[in-house]
Structures are given as C-alpha cells and as structure tokens.
C-alpha cells in the first residue's frame, strides 16, 4: 500500500468523523430545541392568550389574535400594580435587612475569633434542617400574639429571620477567602472591627452580597403560603396570593386580561434576572457545593 492511499484513507476517515461529529451536534441541537419548546409552552400560551379576548379563545382557539387585544395589558396592570408594589417593597425591605445582617454575621464568623464561635454558627446552620411545615402554624400563632398579623411586618420580620441563615452561610464562606493581610494592615492603621467590616470586607464582597440579595428577593417574591396565612387585607397583599384573588377582587373573569396580569406579575422577576441572572446562578451552584 502506498503512502498516498494511506493519506487519502486518513483524510476520508477524518472527513467521515467530521461528518459524524456534525451530525451528532445537529441532533443535540435539534433535541434541545424540541425540549426547549416544550418547556416554554406555558409561557408561550400565556403571551398568546394575553392578546386575545374570551370570544377568540373559546371560538378560534388556535387562531392568531385578531384583533390583537393589547388593551388586556392596561387591565391586567391595573389589577396587579398594587400587589406588585407591595411585594417589591416588602421583599425590598427584607432584602436590605438580610444583606446587612447576613454580611455582618458572616463577617463576624469568618474574621473574628471568640469563644463559642462554632457552637453559635452550628446553632444557626441547624435551622436549615427545620422544615417549614413544623414552624408554619406556631409562627402564625406567634405573629398573631405579637399583634403584627395582617401588617407588612408579619412578612418582613419572618422573611428576614429565615432568609439570613443561607446568607450567613454564603457570606462566611466568601469572607473567609479574603486575604488576612488586608485586615491586619487595617488594624495597624487603627481601624475598629466595624470599620474593617464596612471599609474593607463589604467593598470587596459585592458579588456575594448581590447574590444573597437576589436569591432572597426571588424567594420572598415567590413565597405563597405564609402571606396566604398572615395577610387577609387585600390592600396590603402580595403578588403570589394576589394572583389567586384578583379575579374576585376586580371581577376579571376573562382569560385575556387574566393572562396579561400573569405576564405583568412576571415583569419584576424578568427585570431582576436581566441584570442578576449570573449572581443567582452563582448562588445556586455555590450553595449546592456547600450543602
């Protein structure tokens, strides 16, 4: 066999391998595309229906919206805006508290040495093992007895308290990686612990602080059973529960405006994820490794 044919052979096999490779890649992309479509069906349906009226939905289910009922959106927005404002302000208040408390405590656990440090830390981490069903009813009774039931505090305080646990875990791990020299030089310059915290630790830790904030914001925005239990006044209700009651509150029975309202309720998270997706992903993956 001559060297020429061998070379040709090798080229042929290489081309074959290339073709097989391309075929595989195409297959992968096609199946992913199909799965992606199936995954997004509910969202597509939501957007599709939000532009129709009941006549179009019941009469011509598959037909494209004609005429396009863009006015569903003002109706849906009108119904949801109060709930969204409530959700964003309560969750926002809680996020600020959680960020402050989690970073402070995380800093203390990571950078200070003091008796019973690990005992207290384990006592806090142990709360990750307590499921919501155990504390749900006693916490409900507690907020009733504290007299804050049916007020924003019934949401903000328990959210903050529960939310800081995971935040402390993330912050402690992050702060522990900061070089000790930074803090030593700060101490030599006469900085107090509190100054070291907000002048050195916090500015270096924006990524983890944003992660904690976004994860807590998403969790609070999605919380359903707790506001359902503790808030009965529709004026101060949050989005997740509001979504189930605005039909009766605003007399919206048509599917179009309802779907538009669902879409509107999605917007705050959409905005959040547009800016913070990678922080959220970081939170999920780094949390996974720690757990």
């Amino acid at each position, binding site marked *: 066999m001559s060297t020429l044919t061998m070379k040709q052979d090798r080229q042929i096999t290489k081309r074959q391998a290339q073709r097989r490779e391309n075929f595989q890649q195409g297959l992968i992309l096609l*199946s992913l595309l199909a799965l992606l479509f199936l995954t997004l069906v509910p969202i597509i349906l939501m957007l599709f229906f939000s532009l129709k009226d009941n006549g179009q939905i019941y009469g011509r289910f598959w037909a494209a919206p004609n005429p396009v009922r863009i006015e569903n959106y003002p109706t849906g927005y009108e119904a949801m805006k109060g709930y969204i404002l409530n959700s964003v302000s309560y969750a926002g208040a809680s996020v600020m508290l959680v960020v402050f408390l989690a970073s*402070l405590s995380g800093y203390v656990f990571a950078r200070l040495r003091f008796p019973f440090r690990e005992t207290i830390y384990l006592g806090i981490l142990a709360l990750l093992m307590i499921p919501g*069903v155990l504390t749900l009813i006693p916490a409900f009774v507690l907020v009733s*007895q504290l007299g804050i039931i049916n007020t924003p505090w019934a949401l903000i*305080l328990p959210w903050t308290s529960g939310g800081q646990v995971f935040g402390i875990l993330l912050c402690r791990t992050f702060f522990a990686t900061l070089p000790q020299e930074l803090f030593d030089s700060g101490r030599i310059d006469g900085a107090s612990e509190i100054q070291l915290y907000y002048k050195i630790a916090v500015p270096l830790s924006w990524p983890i602080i944003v992660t904690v904030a976004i994860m807590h914001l998403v969790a609070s925005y999605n919380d359903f*059973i707790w506001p359902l239990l503790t808030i009965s006044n529709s004026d101060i209700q949050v989005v*997740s529960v509001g*979504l189930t009651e605005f039909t009766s509150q605003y007399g919206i029975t048509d599917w179009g405006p309802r779907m538009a309202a669902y879409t509107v309720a*999605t917007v705050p998270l959409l905005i959040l*994820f547009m800016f913070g997706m990678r922080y959220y992903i970081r939170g999920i993956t780094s949390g996974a490794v720690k757990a």
Partner: protein
Amino acid sequence: MRPLTRVALLLLSFLLLIAAMPSLAQDGWTDHAGDSVWSLALSADGSVQVVGSRNNRVAAYRQDGALLWEFHPEGTVWGVAVSGDGAWTAVASEDRHVYLLDAFGEEVWRYRSPRIVYDVAMSNDGSRVVAIDEGRVARYLDVASGDLLWESNLRNIADAVAIYGSRAIRPIFGTRDSQVLLYSPEGQRLWRAQLDDEVLSVDVSSNGATVVAATMDGEIALIKGNNAEIVWQMPAPDETRCNPRQRNYCLHLALSSDGGRILLGTRYDNLFLLDSADGSVLQSHPAGGDVSALALSADGEHWLIGTRDGQVRSWTATGAAAAWRAAQDLRRNLTIGIPAALALFVLLASIWVRRTDSGRRFWQVTSRPTRTLLLTMWRRRIAYVLLTPTVVLLLIFNYYPALSGLYHSFTDWNPTGETLWVGTRQFDAMLNSNYFWVGMKNAAILALSGFLKLAMPLLVAELIFHIRHSLLQYLARTLFIVPLVVPSVVGILLWVNIYDPTIGLLNQTLISLGLEHWVHSWLGERATAMPAIVAIGFPWISAFALLIIYGGLIGIPQELFDAAKVDGASWWKRFTRIDLPMLVPQFRLLLILTFIASMQEFQLIFLTTGGGPSDATYTPALELYYNATLFSNFGLASAMGTFLFIVILGGTILNLRYVRSQVEYEA
C-alpha cells in the same frame, strides 16, 4: 469538712427552716372512692359524710373518716342527699331508682323512675326528697311513705337541685336552658331566673334568702331568694372554661346555711372560699384534682371535696383556714427568705474567699478556667454585640416556633384560651385519620415521581455539555433557565389553564388530533387528578436541578475525559463510569431537596385541586393547613408538623448515609 460543703450545708439548713415553719396539712381525712366522685352530702354537724361514685357505690363515713356503711345500687350514683341529723340518706342512680336508706345504710324504700335519675335533694328535717331525671321531670317524694306527692315537667333537663325550708319545703332547680327555678311545696313554679348558660350546680341558704348557681360559661351568680333578682354574676376566680363534655367536673359550688360563704371547686384543681356579699376570694386551696362534687355542712365547719379521679377529702373549716394562713406565710417567707438566703450565701462566700487562706486557694484553683473564658469573652465582646440582632431574630422567629410546634403537638392548643396537655392523643387522631394516610401516599407519589423526573435535567445538562460551539452552549443554558422568571404561582396557574376542560391546551390538542374520547376534566376527575398533578411542569426540566447538574459536569476534571478517550471508552461507558459517579454529590442534594419539598407540598395542590376531588389529591401539608385555618385545631396541626419533621429528618439522614459519593469531591 471542706469549707464549700460547710457553706452549702448552712444554706440548706436555712432553706429547710423556712420551708418547715408552716404545716400544710388540713385536719380531716382522705379516701379513694375507686372511681369518679359524682356526689357528696353532709349532715348538719358533719357527723355523717356520704360519698356517691361512678362505680355504683354509696359510702358513709364518720367525721374521723371511719366507714359507717356502704350501699350498692345497680348503676352509677349521680346524687346523694342526707337529712340534717344524718338518719336518712337519699340516693339517685343511673339504674332509674331513688333509694331511701336509714342510718345503717339499709334500704327503706325505693322509688322507680321512668328515666335515669340525675340528682336528689333532701330537706333538713328529713321529711321530703326531690329528685330530677333525664326525662325533665322533677318529683317531690314523702320520706316517711315513699309516696309521690307531685311531679312537674321542667321543660328542660335539670342537672342540679337544692332544697330548703322546714315547714314549707321548696325545691330549686338549675336547668340546661340556663334557668334557675323555684317551686312551692305544692308544685307551683314561684319564680324563674334567667342566666347565660347551662346551670351546672345550684345551692340555697337554709332560709331561702340566697341562691347561688354556677354555669357552663364559667360564671357564678348570686340570686335573691325572694324575687329572683340577680345580685351579681362573675367568672370563677381562676377563669375556668367548661365545655359540655366536662359538665360533671367543671364547676361545683355549695353555700353555707347562713348564706354568707360560697365554696367553689373547679376543674383547674382549685377550691375557693368566696364571700357571698361581693364574690371576693377569702381563701384558695389546691383541690387535688378536677373537682366533681362538693358539700358543705350546715354549721359550715365541714367541707367534703370529691374529684374526677376518685379522691375524697374531708376538711374542717378551721383546718382550711389554718392551711390558708400557712400558705400565705410560706409565700411571704419564700419571697423574703430566698433572696435573703442568697444574699447571706454570697456574703459568707465572699468573706470566706477574701479573708481566709483556704478560701483564697480554693478561689484560685477552681475559678481559673472560668475566669479566663469570661475574660476572653469580655475582650471579644464586639463579636457578641454584632451577632445580637441575628441571634435575637432567629430565636424569636425560628427557634421559638420550632420548639413551640414540638411542644404543642402534645396539647389541645387553643392560642386564645386554655391549652391542655393531652399526651399522644393528637398523634393517635392523626394516624387514625383516613385523610392523613391518603396524604402520605400522595406525598410518596410526589417524591418518587420527583426523583424520576430528575432524569430530564440530567439529559439536558449532558446535551448542553456536549455542544461544541461555546456561544450556542451559553445560549442553550440561558434559555433553559428562562422559566425561572415566571413566579411559581403563575407557573402553576398556567398549568391549571392547560388542564381546563373546555379551553385547556391539552384537550384542544387532543380534539384537533381527533382524539375526542381522550378528553378529560383532568383535575376534576378522581382517576386523572393525581397523574395530572404529577405531570405538571412537563417536560420537567427544572432550571434549578439543571444548574446544579450542569455545574457538576463542568467541575469534572478534563483529564478524566481525556483518559477515557485514550482508552477508547464508548459514550455510554463514559456516562456511567465517569459522569454519574462524579455527580453523586449533586444528586444527593437534589434527592434531599426533592424529598423535603414533596413531603411538605402545599402550594401545588392548593392552587390546582385543593385536595379534591373528594380526597384524591390530599397531601399532609394541605391537611395541616386546613386543620389550622378551617377547624382551628392547632394541636393536631402541630402534631402533623412534628410528624413531617421527623419523616423529613429521617429521610435526610438515610440519604446522607446511604447515598455516598465514591470520589471525594471538592469544588
């Protein structure tokens, strides 16, 4: 003796001295009737003391506690009454008889009633007996002959009767329609006083001027005997709460014959002596149990107290007064004495430590570790100060509710009122509830299907991982995470729409494919509801699980893949030998999280079926929610929370123990 021991002994003897000063023993006697004591009676001077109990027993005691005689009717003894001289005893029994016994406990006559006899009263002179029965009828009997003089329909069941007078002997009844009724000796109703709830107990002074009654709402009332005017009405001093099941052992009262003192026994183990002028508390004593019967002798000197668990106690008023004073003294001595003793101890100890060599040495040796620790803690106090807000919040909103839930699962929890310890009764009720087991089965279905569904994110993660083009890879990953932006409630509500019988996407698709006979009301039919809920989220590519698995895949060292390639391993071999073992930590986490979420699944069910149709899609968390919100059964809800907590904890521990990673993996 070592110096420390000396100081401790000194302190102990001082405390003993305080404690030993008053004696708490009432003079009188105690006995056990064998079962709940439902009625008691005393002769005027307390020389005959009669006890009627649930175990078909009537027993008469002397005032020193010696047993005079016993009598056994064929049913529970609901009422006993004694004449002033103790020569006659009347007995009301569940065996539908009124018995008259003589001074030796021998039956003189019996009167057959058509229904169960609830209570009986006898006039002081021993000439008349009044009995009330389950058939709402009051009967006035002549003691000498056993003849019925008259009977009257009270129009409602009476649980209590009292009687007064010597020539004109008048009965008083307390009924379940909240009335106190006075009758004439001839059987005419003289007056009627309307109270606020079922009358549990009633008594009258010997001249008939004062009537007292206790009612189911926990109140006692004083009524004027001549015109039925209610003088005052107030809750029992310990704010006892009653319910109809506790009718026989909630509130009992007796009035002294001059009408000046009220003896009140409650279900909360309390005995009060009240001034009938204004209801103020003169004395209070521990009663030794749920008071189920009370009697007071005409001279007021003898008290007889019976409890639901069968204890009978006979006290004298002098003994009770002495015990009350002693208890007051003890309380005062303790409030002054204990701080004084502690101050003395501190003083002596500090003198010893400062002034004597042995004390100084002792202090040096024993306190060094503690002092060092406290000193360090003081130097590092800034850490504790900075942790305070976090810890305080966690203690209030996380630790306290968790402990409260564990504790209250053993109680009948009533947050606005009285909470009773019931042991494991809530757990028994939970385990015997059909809904609960249906719920556990559904939770298990959710957990198992949740485990299986993890195959989908794994598949997608592998596919994305194998995309060559890095931009496409990034795009694919991002697009699969897009559903995260939809609030979880919206996600579920959209699926409710997809399952809608008329305009749901699923049925519409089936119709346009010509599969009309497959159309269902998916969430509304028993057979399809649970499968439909499991299918929600199809094709089940959870963004969360995808991120975690994909993160794990990226973390696998490239050398492993290269080595596999060199060895010519097939993709399947690579998947099973490298990818899966390396992903064990990720799957362990996902399994735990899926298990925890399934066991407490609430939102998904609440928003789709609410547990229906009938009980097809119940979950334990849903039943917990309903128990708390619809039925205010907080104790049962707490028991369910505790049970689920234990299940989740057990599952997590099992998972951590048995799903071990083959390769230690750190990222």
